[in-house]
């Protein structure tokens, strides 16, 4: 047959289309948890471009930005909103701290949701995030 197995699922394609048009920073991972895309709005928060980052596996991106809770305790993938969205198949939200690729520490709010075209299938997940203002800290 054809190489449709290498084709991104339409839900993923639409997720990339949508997030590429948003001013809200967004991060898209596929069914394996691999970073598939982040939009231009995410670049200043993450401190690097998607072209620089490329496709990172779950274990890689989960440590790439050194996520911690607001007290500085390191967070595992499962404790991040994207990990929770995957594990539990529902939206998840948390405030965390990251270190950008530019070396700057930032506090961000993250809301993640699974990409599930049917109840027994998670094709990926999207995280929307934004930098906390000084008054929120």
């Amino acid at each position: 047959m054809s190489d449709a197995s290498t084709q991104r699922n339409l839900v993923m394609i639409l997720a990339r289309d949508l997030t590429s048009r948003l001013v809200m920073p967004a991060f898209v991972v596929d069914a394996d948890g691999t970073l598939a895309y982040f939009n231009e709005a995410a670049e200043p928060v993450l401190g690097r471009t998607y072209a620089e980052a490329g496709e990172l596996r779950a274990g890689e991106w989960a440590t790439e930005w050194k996520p911690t809770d607001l007290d500085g305790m390191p967070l595992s993938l499962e404790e991040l909103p994207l990990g929770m969205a995957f594990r539990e198949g529902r939206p998840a939200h948390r405030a965390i701290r990251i270190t950008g690729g530019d070396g700057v520490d930032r506090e961000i709010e993250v809301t993640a949701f699974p990409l599930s075209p049917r109840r027994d299938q998670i094709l990926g997940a999207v995280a929307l995030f934004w930098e906390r203002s000084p008054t929120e800290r």
Partner: protein
Amino acid sequence: MRARIWGCRGTLASPGPETIRYGGQTSCIVLDLDDGSVVILDAGTGIRPYGMSLAGAHPRRVDLLLTHLHADHIEGLRFFSPFWDPDVEFRIWGPRAPAKGLEERMAPFFAPPFFPVHLRNVPSRPRFREVPDEPWTIGSATIQAEPIKHPGPAVGYRVEADDRSLAYLPDHEPALGADLRTMEDSWISGLGIARRADVLVHDCQYTVPEYEQRVGWGHSSTTDVVAFAERAEARRLVLFHHDPLHTDADLEGMLVDARSVRGAEPLDVELGYEGQTFALT
């Protein structure tokens, strides 16, 4: 495998003197497989004359592959003679939807006030199957379905038999949100099932100026369909789902436009028409 177009008009059946060369029946292609199996792609109004052509000699089994449930792709089914034959084993395949099953979504179309006969009373007792994620076989053919860009649940199909392939994407807008010249392959809707198809039957509803006024409606322009076919490295492109407002002369102008934007590799581009056949052997 032999394929015949019984309907290639989009949106609304539009018979008349201005559409006589390419036809006014809505989407339907019939595939006769070498083992005697019959696979039908969509049930637009074109399926009715196909049924009439059988003159009562119905196949024992019919597999109908629906790309989606918009009316122009199912409106002929209620008037398709094998559908009313209790001796025909009738299977209807279609896209998954997030909540309701295929049969539940089809049923209102076969119920008052839209139709006098309930789906449960159709003599062939059709069985409904949502397309699987993986390729499957019907007779001597292997079928592959892939969700594609079109409003609501919709899939394109690839049918392979005897090492020949036909890809069918009658309603598809791959250029929505994507530059088809530069986007990576894996991010282009439908490209996987269209890859190196011997025959690619693809939506070409609009001219470029028309498309600019209809972005997001789920259809393609002449320029975009050629770009898609070239990215897919298809061997032969059949322009399909003709706009009901386009006359034969309009379509021939679109064919000129489509051929003019081809790249260095010569792509065989033609207009689909009722009665057109493809011998994929």
